[in-house]
């Protein structure tokens, strides 16, 4: 997004692949335990007249996922994975990713309150201004895209998208 040149190289690593392998493995193991627990609640055996019970398939699938996760964690811990010492994400890279991810999350949050069209306009204009595009350009794209979306969805395809106070004020909601 920004014009930083080749600065990814030198910034310190925030996490190695090895560490992330272990974290992801642990998360998947936790998920599989929860899934196994819930499957056992609804029954994993044979239901008369229905064949295998509803929990049968999720149970075995989750069990397999758990076992595979344990192997993955163990492989990472013993440094058997191919590029375990490679940087998963450097500090510069993490900052770059967050400068997109956080505004996007705020954008999704905004949709719920002010509707998708206004939120999109704010998001696009903000994003472009923050990445040093000219204000005129930002306004053109930021107003043009939501307007095009509005015409396309509300008028052409008749698919209503979330709208907020502005649309209500204009009598469009």
């Amino acid at each position, binding site marked *: 997004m920004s014009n930083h040149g080749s600065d990814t190289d030198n910034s310190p690593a925030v996490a190695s692949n090895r560490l992330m392998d272990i974290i992801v493995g642990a998360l998947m193991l936790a998920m599989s335990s929860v899934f196994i627990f*819930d499957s056992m609640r609804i029954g994993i055996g044979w239901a008369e007249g229905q064949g295998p019970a509803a929990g049968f398939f999720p149970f075995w699938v989750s069990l397999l996922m758990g076992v595979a996760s344990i192997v993955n964690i163990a492989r990472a811990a013993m440094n058997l994975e191919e590029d375990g010492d490679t940087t998963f994400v450097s500090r510069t890279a993490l900052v770059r990713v967050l400068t997109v991810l956080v505004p996007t999350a705020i954008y999704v949050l905004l949709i719920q309150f002010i509707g998708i069209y206004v939120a999109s306009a704010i998001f696009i204009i903000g994003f472009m201004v923050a990445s040093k595009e000219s204000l005129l350009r930002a306004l053109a794209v930021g107003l043009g895209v939501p307007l095009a979306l509005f015409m396309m969805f509300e008028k052409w395809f008749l698919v*209503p998208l979330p709208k907020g106070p502005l649309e209500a004020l204009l009598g469009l909601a």
Partner: protein
Amino acid sequence: MEEIQSLIGGFQVALSWYNLVLMVIGILLGVIIGVLPGLGGANGVAILLPLTCSMPPTSAIIMLSCIYWGALFGGAITSILFNIPGEPWSVATTFDGHPMAQQGRADEALTAAFTSSFVGALFAVILITFLAPLIAKFALQFGPAEFFSVFFLTFASFIGMGKGSPFKVIAAMCLGFALGAVGLDKMTGSLRLTFGHEELLGGFDFLIAVIGLFGIAEILSSVEGGLKFQGAAATIRLDAVLQTWKRLFGLWATSLKSCIIGCWMGITPGGATPASFMSYALAKRFSKNGHNFGKGELEGVVAPETAAHAAGTSALLPMLTLGIPGSPTAAVLLGGLMIWGLQPGPMLFVEQKDFVWGLIASMYLGNLVGLVIVLTCVPLFAAILRVPFSIIAPVILVICAVGAYTVKNNMFDVWMMLAFGLVGYTFNKLGYPIAPLVLAIVLGDKAEESFRQALLGSGGSLAVFWSNWLVGSIMTIGMLLLFWPLIGPVVARLKGSGPRVDAGGGLALASPIPTPGVCAELSPAVAPSPSEAAMPARLRQLRGENAELKRRLAEAIIDADQRVAMTVEELEAENRHLRDRLTFYASQNDRSKPN
């Protein structure tokens, strides 16, 4: 010939003005989708799918499949002009395509890429035309056990043929199955894995997963690298097209080989990406000009492009005949069939003849229309690529959010899309495969249903999966593939003397696992062979370091390309240095070549 008659009927369906216009719109959208980062075939189709509900199903699938063809074409443009593969399957196209563009032969490379794509697709469509009805007729006799065995084979082949750690494939796949199982169980009506949350009643929609895993994740990866586009402008002159076509006739053997590889990898869920790599490696191995590959050899563009398109197209064969998609995009199209109220599978050929043959006919027409459009509109598409990323990124994120919302008119899905984006970003970096995850979410329900019905019929005995030669042999092949990561090394050890690292030693054709061997040849340090674990720790560490350094070097070079204001002296010095490196690697490659 019954097929020919049906096909003519199909052309009558497809050849209406309405459908032709949709075809052109689809191809144009598809190329743009293929050119832009963050929008690929799979999530592009996923975003547009809800909009097609009001169209007749035949027109809808014609447009969506044309988006798919367009995306396949579009990937080549970015690879050749900008050295940025717009799609994973066009990575191999950059190897020779971009050097050609740098030598001022961009029009040749683009013509070759588009024409090869067309040839690959045409081969696959002809295959579909004659094979699909046969397979569908055959599959009409399938019971639940047979269907489960095919599902089983599909998923087992991800483990047996995938590159990277089989345990990561299993973990990703099972996560997909588990996510697919969330919600109301159709057979018993009980709620599964919802934990009292109302939003989860309907389960995870795989379209959301696709938009997040492919779209959001790719934007995040692009941002991370500080991606900016910079590339050669290109127009295609008619005489260059004719010249290149003349040369392409001489490469018919390579084309044919690539077609066959592509179709095979497309029908089995190997997919377009490994097909393109494999075909490139094979062409390099058998070509007279093999030593010239990587420096701008026409054949090096033809081979991967033909295979990628043949694979991408033939992935629709199992989707149409068995209801089992061969690629994530085919999976999304399959989801479309269900949304339009059509039941995918062999019955489609009996009950919806018009639809099926209309689609097949549109594949011929769509690819022809596509070839004409891409050949004439290259400057337009190249211009899109010069739009700065700071404009493209927010617009694509908005489009993804809108797409996710329209799937079920639900805000929860938009949050899920973001979550899937993070998962995809992480998985990509750690080598967890995305394709089996997506296919498991799509097919989990059906695989489970066939499994439970088969067991219900047999009274719980697993012997039903070996009850006749057909289901038995499919299951056995599936089992072999499933345990291949264990069996493979043993077989290799019995054959040769111990696990030998085939470092740069060319494509091990005798190797029963094609993909890792091929990738190992293309970049020995990046994709190590399966016997990696047997290597001394120091060697492994150095290899890892080497891969990382090369990756950084490539990144730095791309970044350097963007610094326009370099002095003559600086550029001279840098070029001298780069030539040195090139000579070094060329000598290394010569050394490792088998004589």
